[in-house]
């Protein structure tokens, strides 16, 4: 037995747990390591996908939960094309990310949404129905329109005051939920590091979180450059849109028509264009399913981009109707916009695919911390797989 390392108990049920989150079928694997060799993101400190998959197959739960490597993986699929057994490690890594997302969330909600299609689509639909009801109630009771008066065109202005609070709620609450998991993720992945990592290392590497969030720079090491650009533009558009909506809603949601050169006019369009570009790029890829990374697309993978697209599209339509003076159409489209955007924000952000916006940079940050800690303490023997 290796000296100084406590054996980990093998839990044969782990595999079944993982498989609830999607396809995890690397059973053809004979640990040849071709996948890890083929990966451009692998480093001396992060050797995957073989290690992550091996943890799963051997039922090593704690090491798997502590494993940050599924987040370093950017899904390019080189491992799957290289694998001599066609065990599709890329798909397994994607499943592991969902599994880990499920484990990072304490209430079990994420786990439910990620493992059950009924739960997932049910939640989306419920959220949408709730918004419809809210809109109805708002009009019938808060504004005080009669039931028959719902077809009366109103200006948008009457909704803005309440929408400010509404928007802040549906956007910030999911974000806060996500951020609330940071500690749990730290505990799972970092707390048992031996020797313990001093705070200073965390502080020194803190910029990494921002840097990774803003640049996605790791993805640029992936073999296909175009993918990074598409993803980065999509992320940029989404962040721009969120920022506008959270911090400048009053400026944007107005019946005042600014001149065309005013940023109020084009900033939103620019963000929407970015989103369109990014989403269409992804959707075309997923529908064609030619590239390795788009193989094995699940319906759930399509929902977030589609919702993003519809949200941006309906927002744009509201503006067009408004500038064309079609007040009623603008009003209805606006309601639709809110009905689409809300489920996306409250379901996808904290529990679904969009959570990787927070998780991935966090994991990369932690990884950077680990690496720095390892480099700072060369005297202590670093056992890469010890947890």
């Amino acid at each position, binding site marked *: 037995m290796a000296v100084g390392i406590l054996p*980990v*108990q093998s839990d044969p049920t782990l595999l079944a747990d993982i498989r609830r989150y999607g396809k995890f079928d690397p059973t053809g*694997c004979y640990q040849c390591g071709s996948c890890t*060799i083929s990966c451009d993101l692998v480093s001396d400190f992060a050797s995957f996908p*073989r290690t992550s998959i091996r943890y799963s197959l051997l039922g090593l739960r704690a090491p798997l939960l502590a494993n940050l490597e599924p987040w370093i993986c950017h899904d390019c699929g080189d491992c799957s094309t290289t694998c001599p057994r066609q065990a599709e490690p890329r798909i397994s890594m994607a499943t592991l990310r969902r599994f880990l997302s499920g484990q990072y969330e304490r209430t079990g909600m994420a786990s439910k949404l990620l493992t059950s299609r009924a739960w997932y689509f049910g939640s989306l639909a419920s959220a949408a129905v709730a918004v419809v009801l809210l809109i109805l109630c708002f009009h019938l009771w808060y504004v005080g329109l009669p039931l028959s008066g719902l077809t009366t065109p109103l200006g948008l202005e009457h909704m803005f005051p309440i929408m400010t609070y509404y928007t802040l709620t549906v956007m910030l609450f999911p974000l806060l939920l996500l951020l609330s998991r940071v500690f749990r993720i730290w505990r799972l992945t970092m707390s048992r590091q031996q020797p313990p990592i001093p705070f200073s290392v965390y502080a020194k590497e803190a910029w990494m979180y921002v840097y990774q969030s803003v640049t996605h720079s790791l993805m640029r090491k992936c073999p296909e450059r175009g993918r990074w650009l598409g993803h980065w533009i999509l992320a940029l558009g989404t962040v721009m849109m969120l920022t506008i909506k959270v911090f400048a809603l009053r400026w944007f949601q107005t019946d005042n028509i600014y001149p065309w050169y005013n940023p109020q006019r084009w900033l939103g369009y620019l963000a929407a264009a970015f989103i369109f570009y990014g989403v269409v790029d992804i959707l075309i890829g997923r529908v064609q399913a030619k590239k390795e990374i788009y193989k094995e697309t699940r319906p759930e993978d399509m929902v977030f981009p589609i919702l993003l697209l519809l949200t941006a599209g309906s927002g744009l339509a509201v503006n067009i109707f408004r500038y064309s003076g079609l007040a009623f159409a603008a009003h209805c489209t606006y309601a639709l916009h809110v009905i689409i955007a809300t489920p996306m924000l409250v379901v996808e952000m904290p529990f679904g695919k969009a959570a990787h916006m927070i998780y991935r940079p966090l994991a990369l940050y932690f990884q950077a911390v680990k690496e720095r800690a390892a480099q700072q303490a060369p005297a202590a023997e670093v056992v890469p797989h010890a947890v």
Partner: protein
Amino acid sequence: MPSEKSQTPPVGAALVVGGGIGGMQAALDLASGGIKVYLAERGPAIGGVMAQLDKTFPTNDCAMCTMAPRLVEIGRHKDIDILTLTEVERVDGQAGNFTVSIKQEPRFVDPTKCTGCGACITECPVTLPSEFDQGLGERKAIYRPYPQAVPNIFTISRRGVAPCQAACPVHQDGQGYVTLIAQKRFEEALQVILRDNPLPSICGRVCTHPCTAACTRAGVDDPVNLPALKRFVTDQCPDYKLPQPSVPDRPERIAIVGSGPAGLACAYQLRQQGYRPTIFEALSTAGGMLAVGIPSFRLPRRLLNAEVDRMRAIGIEILLDTPVGRSIAFDDLRKSFAAVFLAIGAHVERKLAVPGETLVGVTGGVEFLRRVNLEMPVIPGRQVLVIGGGNSALDAARTALRCGATDVTIVYRRTRAEMPADPREIEDAQREGIKLMFLAAPKSFQADANGRVAGLECLKMKLGKPDTSGRPAPEPIPGSEFVLPCDAAIVSIGQFPDVGALGERLGLDITKWGTLTADPLTLETGLPGVFAGGDCVTGPDVVVNAKLAGRKAARSIDRWLNRQDLRIGRELEGPYRTEYEVDTTGVLMQRQIHMQALDPATRGRTFAEVHVGYTPEEAIAEAKRCLACGICCDCHLCETACEANAIDYTQREQKIDLNVGAVVLAPGYEIFDARLKKDLGYGRFPNVITALEFERILSASGPYSGHVLRPFDRQEPKRIAFLQCVGSRDSDNDYCSSVCCMYATKEAIIAKEHLGEGLQCDIFFMDLRAFGKGFEQYYHRAQELGVHYIRSRVPKIEEVPGTRNLIVQYLGENDKKLFQEYDLVVLSVGMQPPKDVKVLAERFGVALNTFNFCGTSTFRPAESSREGIFVAGPFAEPKDIPETVMQASAAATQVLSLLREARGTLITPKVYPPEKDVKGEEPRIGVFVCHCGTNIAGVVNVPDIVEYAKTLPNVVYAENNLYTCSNDTQDRIKEQIAEHNLNRVVVASCTPRTHEPLFRNTLAEAGLNPYLFEMANIRDQCSWVHMHEPEKATQKSKDLVRMALAKSRLLQPLHRQTVRVEKSALVIGGGLSGMTAALALARQGFDVYLVEKENELGGSLRHTYYLLSGENPQDELARLRDEIAQNTRIHLFTGAAIEKIDGTIGNFKTTISAGGATTEITHGVVIVATGAKQYQPKEYLYGQDDSVITQRELEARLASGNGFLAREGNRPAKTAVAKTVVMIQCVGSRDADHPYCSRVCCAEAIKNALKIKALSPQTHVYVLYRDIRTYGFKESYYTKARQQGVVFVRYDESQKPEVSRNGKGLQVAVCDQTLGMPITISADLVVLSAGIHPHEDNRKIAQFLKVPLNSEGFFLEAHMKLRPVDFMTDGVFLCGLAHSPKNIEESILQAQAASARAASVLVQDSLELGANISQVLDESCDGCAYCVDTCPYKAITMLEYMWQGSIKKVVETADSTCKGCGCCQATCPKNGIFIRGFTLEQIEAQIHAALGVA
């Protein structure tokens, strides 16, 4: 098994398909079992892949050295017919009586004449990549794959006639002369040209060259410039001569009328056949149109004259100024000559038939050219019009220019595309300033005041519908008349022959075009003996067609004079298209090199030759563009080189039907095409090679003569990487190729032997599969020698630009991604089914399995799906040499039982004349010294040796032979023996290893004792090793001959002793192997004594309940027991022990005790099938904890259907299943005490794991292993197990798993080597894969039989690769677990193999022993027994007996065991024992002769 269905007796012959080591083994076993064998091989020689190997693992024996004797044995076996270049097309009939249709490709060498001397190779100009050297070396188009090839006959790689040659009307061998030019062999190129073409310098200039139109290279860039090359050769050798006829002159005289190309060609061909033709020429110069129709700037007159002079020089008479019909009457001609060929050409000009054609200044083209050529005055013009579009018109126009015209215009009624003239000529004319006017038809000539022509009125034309010639017909445009001014006009629109003088008067048919009528094939006219051809029959045509006519006429005349049929077999005369396709992919673009020409601005003023011809460099470069379409270039130089006259270009494909009773399929395998793994760079990176290529590089006979160099820069590599599993163990090939781990290990070891310790050899692998006998030890030895094993599969290789080194990326310790640079990467390519395996399977009607190999089943491992068709070797599953050999023997034993009734029916015993008694005669020695073509005579002065031999005592006759081994020389030797009453024969030639049996046979046929023969090896030992010192080689040859003679004087007749063979066998051991072997022999009609120490049959098979492949072994066991019980030939002893075994092959005596009684039996052979036992583990709590069991115990529980968890609380539960099962591999295997792999445990564990998963899918199964060794198709079960969720955890020998029990149950701790992480597993059941260990009583049996054991205690066979079931002791055979661990299928194969080998002894009534064996001289032997221990065959025993009152000790030799090695003779201090035929006196005499003492 014999077919019940067939009523007729079976055919006593078998077909073996595939001449590799498997096919060879099957053929030998069958032939020695009394069956006639046809051994069909696709290639030109047998030997298979083994012949290409350098060494074999694990003994590092030279592959060729071990197999060469077997090659010779097969090559000389009287009952084996080797059919090379043979494909089987279909197999009809049923088991016992098949009709096999085979197709045999031509060899183009007569196998009865070729002696394999190799003189042809040096002459052959065509170089090809050598298949034998995997393309790393080169061979010639005439070749033999390797020097030891059997049959030792050369083969020509010949796709067919090259397209250029086929397209040429006279079949000029374009590829032939081009190939020779490329090699700077210009003289020989000219000889090739002259074979078909007596006028090469003319043809190189004026022929229209249909060959270039057919050139394959035209499809790539431009055709090869054949005309320029041909011309070049004649320019290079201006003083060449035509070949003299090689046959005696014939009396018939033949008249040829006309000295044009047709007449000259006919005369040349006739002269070559010995006729003496006379040519009658009307003009004052010879050459016909060549002389008068073609201007000298295209064909210089001196060249034509030289050609004509050459014709005269070989005896062709040419009479100038002798017009037939005027100077000599045609009738006279017919009377004085045996045959007449009319080739009068077409010299009469066609007229335009327009007004003004007779004006002064209007001439005919031919008339104009003739006048210029004959230097007669011509009317000069300044502004000249030439009417017509043919070559003559162009020649006329260009000549007019050279005669002083300043403005020459060609008027043609169609367009350039329709012009019949050679496009090159048109270009040349245009360059010289000649104008072309198209779509203009002459209407009338206009005259000036002096009546001279002044202009031509033309009509504009347009192109209409195609006419009969296929070209669009010109149609006049009415009213489009215009006038072209001129002061001279030349009309050149065609000619017709002047037949007036001959035709009508003689009664020859004349066509409406004014030409003679002759049969197009034979050129016969209406008059017997009169033939006609050339322009006078066809109308004006190109030169080469005239020559074709000449050739045809010559052939017809020859046949006519010999009263042969004029038509048969002449289909291919004249141009045709070849049918084959030439693959031009990968041919690099390289445009044709044009001949330099004179400056067009000035050349139009002189008659100097326009084109100046190639320089030698240009010619060679241009010649190298040839794509060698026909492969063999048809140059026939080998024919000249071959003194045995063995070359035969006329051979054609042959179809033969064979009648056989059974078929053994051993077609071998293909190596995986590594190009398919694109990322590994094979084919792109020169230093990435396959293992077979590396094998050739390692081989002393390989492309680099055994120097280990890398292909790119021929430098010694310092770092070599071996990549395993290329084309094995992936999704496309879900099987293991079984041999690669070991051959990579071997190659690494050998490479280090070659290049020294400093060489770095890294083997990248996943599981090291050293599962065979001695393999694990070999693997350890490699590690000790510094071969590194790195457990990582390499998916990609990159090349370093410049050095062409290679970067290998892999995962090192702790999963670190590492890069390593290597000089050479060797890919361990896997085995694939043979090429076109589906076609093959269809032709034989056998089924393939999912991997496209030939499917067999566990209990019928040598049988295909079709009855009567058996299978051996990698065609059934990837396997190593010994398994192939065993399967081949197993297939043979099946055939022997199937055809048992027909045994011996188709083989012919050899009968020799009675032997002459030579006792007391003075030696009368005949000496035969061999030239071996030039192989010996090229260095050694052979006639000198003969003269020298004649001077030596007792030599009554000596002669030299071109090839002493040829069939006619054998007859000659017999004649000389009779004529000179010889009683000793000495042959000085090559090696006795291959040729001694042949000459001994010749002596026997001559009635002389075959041992009165001696051989001197003056080839290997003189002409080969002293190649550069001919005089010393000759002197040494004399020494060797003198030595051989010295010995031969002392030779005595020897006779081979025979021993009677007891036709029964003893089989020791009643397990699966013993039962199988016993049954196989009993089915062949032999008595078998089957001895089993247990009380029931079955051995280890009793513990096997199910198999991976699904069959039920217990059913099979019951079936075997039944069959044994019912077979009256099998005498079964159970609960029995062997007390004693005495005797030797043919006559053993054995005492068996069973049930208190002892029985003594006699038998001819012994088969050892004593089996092995399972290790009883002491580790892992086995025996202490009920839940730790062995695989065998688990199997019993799984088979009982009562659940497989032993405990419930403390009591066993019948139906409870385990939640978690942990299996531990290598228990009692691969450790210090048992340093070998038990081979079967991995597959057994997987079998049981799969069974658990089938019974209880929720049970978790862990397999803790060191290397998973599921070789062959078993790999797919490993895959299946992983897919079903069995978890495989690799541990290291230094960190073995630990099993403990705590409150929660059994705990297994193991360090997973992939993660380098210790883990614990809670288990309900721990299953140990206990190894296979040899029985202790093997030692006793080994002593009885005088056979060895290996260091582990298993029996040691005679040779690990080629004799896996034999012992060094004859008559004793081995099979099953007693040999080494193996699975059921392998045990059955080995048992069947042992029975085949045993049967080859038992079929014989008596055994012939060797003649050169030891003999004891009792009077000299004092019983010191030095020889007893020395004898490697344990053939010598001590005897003690009372003689004259005292104990006398002597030794005794067992004749049937002695191999005549001579060790005893060398050790004996008293000259008390000697080897017959190698006595001390004989050897002494040789030494004295060598030292000149005698």
